């Protein structure tokens, strides 16, 4: 038996799957670039992704009105090496992208805060730490909210 319709269909589906994966890169790779671009646009600087900065939020939360957010970072907090402030952004919120800026003082502050924020829809929440030497460190976390907390 020669080339069957099944063979042709199989070849076709494999081919289109390969084509599709070329267009749709994994979500994490694409979102990392978007987040970096957003931070550059908002701060005028390029940030470095760092695991020293911890942004802890629930992956899934039933309401977008009061989503808990914990932020902490290891830092000696000396005059020469400290965190000046940490800014948090919710890029998918309408107009109100910047959530807050937590400002710290060397020697006196502990870099650990908790609050509750509004999220309009599921998105990556981004934290950017501004260090005493001017460097920016960033991290992000995905939060899936069921309701629009900005409405």
């Amino acid at each position, binding site marked *: 038996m020669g080339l069957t319709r099944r063979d042709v269909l199989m070849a076709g589906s494999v081919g289109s799957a390969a084509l599709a994966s070329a267009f749709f890169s994994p979500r994490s790779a694409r979102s990392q670039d978007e987040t970096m671009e957003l931070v550059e646009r908002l701060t005028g600087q390029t940030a470095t992704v760092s695991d020293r900065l911890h942004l802890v939020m629930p992956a899934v939360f039933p309401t977008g009105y009061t989503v808990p957010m914990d932020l902490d970072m290891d830092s000696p907090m000396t005059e020469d090496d400290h965190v000046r402030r940490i800014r948090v952004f919710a890029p998918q919120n309408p107009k109100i992208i910047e959530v807050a800026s*937590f400002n710290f003082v060397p020697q006196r502050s502990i870099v650990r805060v908790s*609050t*509750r924020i509004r999220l309009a829809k599921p998105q990556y929440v981004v934290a950017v730490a501004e260090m005493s030497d001017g460097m920016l460190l960033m991290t992000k976390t995905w939060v899936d909210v069921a309701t629009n907390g900005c409405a």
Partner: protein
Amino acid sequence: MSTPIPRVVVPSAAAKGEVFQVKTIISHQMETGLRHDDQGQVIPRKIINRFVCRYGGVEVFSVDLHEAISANPFIEFSLRATESGRLEFIWEEDGGGVYQLEHQLAVA
């Protein structure tokens, strides 16, 4: 809107060098400026836009709040007990409103 009422939970005493937690909350609508009333008019933004903590007269922590902070803003943070003194908590509102609380901390 009724007068915002701030509340703070903070220990009255701490050992020198100890890290202690401060929990703060203030009752406030945190009107985002995105909502509309029954007539379709935009309800203007009115939020607590700044929180400051002073320890012994020195600012040790502050927050610039924007519209995406939830209503009745809850801010929990930590401080190191350095010396006995006064802790001041100040909330500033759009339009100039200021709300304050004070607390004495005894450090052994």
